[in-house]
């Protein structure tokens, strides 16, 4: 069953000098219980995509087109009140990046979780507090820390609090936006383990947003590689990692070092990502692509299905 289907989503930032084409014609879908990784470098539009779906865009974000179908319902048509009451946090919630900033600095963590529950469910304060304690236990903080302030917790515990808060209303879908950046390796591993366990235990669907391909490889079933506002390659994790087709994906995967296996050369991609205010014509990767052809400079390649259920690539080197 398809939980979320995003079709041709286009979102631009309106700035003084024009539009920053942050998300351009992005499509993907997510089955219930699956997890999808949105990967790419900073500024490639992965967070913007999530914010557009969650309707958390700042004042200058403009959805220019596309469909977002969640549980068979078109989200872009839904009114704000209903979305706020019934969808966001109730059905889909988000683990924000940077836990130190995502938590209110002078509210107790218990209150912050309870608040989320009480806003969406018609239960008593006491029941909400009970559930908050259970959630804190579940993510490994321990119910006894319910009265703590964020500054009294370490980075890892804060991140777990944010996870507990995201789980407050038993959502179907969780967006995890760089859930472990700024955490140390061991703490990162601990938090990832918690996420994986919860996913398994609660049969959660998840969209993991990260620049770290290694992390996505460990947590996700499918992966969409984004470059400069577009999805360049999309497929299940094993296929993408084992047989990447897009030159960007190939290079990017090889740019990540690994602690296991023989030591390999790190791939380099020459140049810098483009300015999305004036993206290059044709394929947005062509200025950095070693295989760029004439057509790449002129025409934007469309995403085409390759073999298998999911795997699709937007590159002229592939297909006809």
């Amino acid at each position, binding site marked *: 069953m398809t939980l979320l289907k995003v079709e041709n989503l286009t979102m631009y930032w309106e*700035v*003084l000098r024009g539009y920053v084409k942050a998300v351009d014609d992005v499509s993907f879908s997510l089955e219930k219980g699956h997890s999808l990784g949105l990967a790419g470098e900073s500024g490639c539009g992965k967070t913007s995509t999530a914010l557009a779906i969650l309707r958390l865009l700042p*004042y*200058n974000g403009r959805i220019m087109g596309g469909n977002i179908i969640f549980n068979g319902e078109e989200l872009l048509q839904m009114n704000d009140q209903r979305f706020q009451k019934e969808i966001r946090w109730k059905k889909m919630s988000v683990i924000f990046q940077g836990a130190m900033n995502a938590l209110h600095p002078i509210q107790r963590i218990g209150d912050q979780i309870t608040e989320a529950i009480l806003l969406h469910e018609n239960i008593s304060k006491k029941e909400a507090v009970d559930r908050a304690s259970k959630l804190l236990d579940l993510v490994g903080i321990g119910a006894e820390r319910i009265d703590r302030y964020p500054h009294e917790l370490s980075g890892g515990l804060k991140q777990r609090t944010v996870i507990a808060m995201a789980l407050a209303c038993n959502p179907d879908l969780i967006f995890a936006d760089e859930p472990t950046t700024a955490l140390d390796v061991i703490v990162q591993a601990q938090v990832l383990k918690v996420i994986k366990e919860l996913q398994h235990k609660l049969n959660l669907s998840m969209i993991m947003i990260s620049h770290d391909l290694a992390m996505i490889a460990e947590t996700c079933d499918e992966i969409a590689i984004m470059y400069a506002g577009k999805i360049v390659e999309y497929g299940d994790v094993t296929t993408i990692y084992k047989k990447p087709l897009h030159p960007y994906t190939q290079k990017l995967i090889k740019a990540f070092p690994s602690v296991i296996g023989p030591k390999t050369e790190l791939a380099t991609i020459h140049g810098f990502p483009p300015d999305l205010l004036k993206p290059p014509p044709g394929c947005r990767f062509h200025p950095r692509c070693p295989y760029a052809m004439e057509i790449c400079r002129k025409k934007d390649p469309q995403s085409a299905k390759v073999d298998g259920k999911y795997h699709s690539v937007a590159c002229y080197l592939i297909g006809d």
Partner: protein
Amino acid sequence: MALFRKEKRTIYVRKIKNFWEEFSHNRIGLAGIGILIFYVMVAVFTPYISPMRPTSQEYNPPRSAAMYAMPEWVRIFPQFQDLPPSFEVRLLENVTLVNSTVTDRATLQFDKEALNITFHADAEEEEGSILLHLTAFSYVYAPPSDFKLTTVYYETGNQIRYEIDLFLTTDQQNDIWDEWLEDPTRAVLYTNDRKVTRYPSVDKKIRRSLYAGLMNEQLFAWQYPNDAVQYAFLHPSEMLLSKKGSYDFYLEIKFNSLASTSTCNIHIDTAEVKFFGDVWGLLGSDRVGHDVWAQLIYGVRISLIVGSLAAVLSSVLGISFGVIAGYSGGRTDQIIMRGVDVLLCLPVLPILLILSSYWSFNVYYVILLIAIFGWQGLSRIVRSKVLSLKEVPFIESARAAGATSGYIMTRHIIPNVLPVVMAAMVLAVPGAILTEAALSFLGFGDPSVPTWGRMLYRSRTQGGFESLAWWYVIPPGLAITFLCLAFVFIGHALDEIVNPRLRRRR
């Protein structure tokens, strides 16, 4: 080197351009700059904008108008149409002899400046009289509230008794004159009755003035020609010129010789009537009839000097102490910050009041004191900024390159602190202006300079309110307000530019 300098220059030109680019999008900031430029222009061209100089302790010009005269332009309103402006009537311009009983005994010389009368008597008890028509003028305003008649004369002679009457006649039917004057056709302005007996001559010039203004109301005695003193609590100037119409000044001199041969020589070299207008200039007059416009315009310079000097001084102090405290840390920091705590607990104005009640202060002392009591807040901001800057890697990077503390403070820390405190520095200007204004407003400022605070002080304490002299109350206040607003606007704009979170959305 040439290349180096040129490139460097282009960098800074670009920097300034970028900043201006940013600033020019901020309408409030532009408004502030506009107002400020206006004030600076006024300060530069002060003598041209206001031909008169304001009063000060050293320089006290003759008054220009009646007390609390209204601005001249109010005459466009019908109810003020008739108010008299300031003007002068010279009495010796066109003297004619009307009547003389002793044409053979007396000689008369007159030109535009002076009048010379010589009377020569051959016999005792010889009498003579001369009636001169001095000036005719037409008075077309409402009765004036204030005028001043001045004559300067000297006389030489002996054994002649003489009497000088200066009087006014009118062709109008005048009931006030009818009621109050013995002879309703002539209003005697003064009578000088001298009995010269023995001494041969007096060479001293005698200045006689007649004030007929409000300020002399109680003191003015209306003297009848017949020596009986009566007091008329009628406004003298209003009474004299109670009707529009033409008036004539006459001078009558009567001689009476006491010896057989005697000569008398009377020399009048000034005779004029000055009407102090009830309307004057662009902004009327103050309590003593001085020009308000001049005070207002000259106030711009003082306020700009006070504001900018005090702000610059306090910024220098605040930044120096803040940087030193923040960068050195440890004991130095503790001492400076505790000093700041103490100074912050001393209220500025009360202390300034004490000190200026001890010594009457020059405005530069006031500036110095405002600066001394005004740097603490800034130094706190600077210190906290320096504390966070100290941890920033580029400072360490400079240290790793071998930079000394002095180099780091001047080349790295201060340039990075300045933009953050720029807004605070600009906002220190209105702070200083307001403090000085408050001091002057309480009557404790430097009395020798014309400041707006002082104008407000005078308007409050010298009856400006009772006279409803809005031209003396409102303009100085507005001038302070707009000058402060200019800096507040600029400060606000800088704050928005420097603090990216406050930046206007585009």
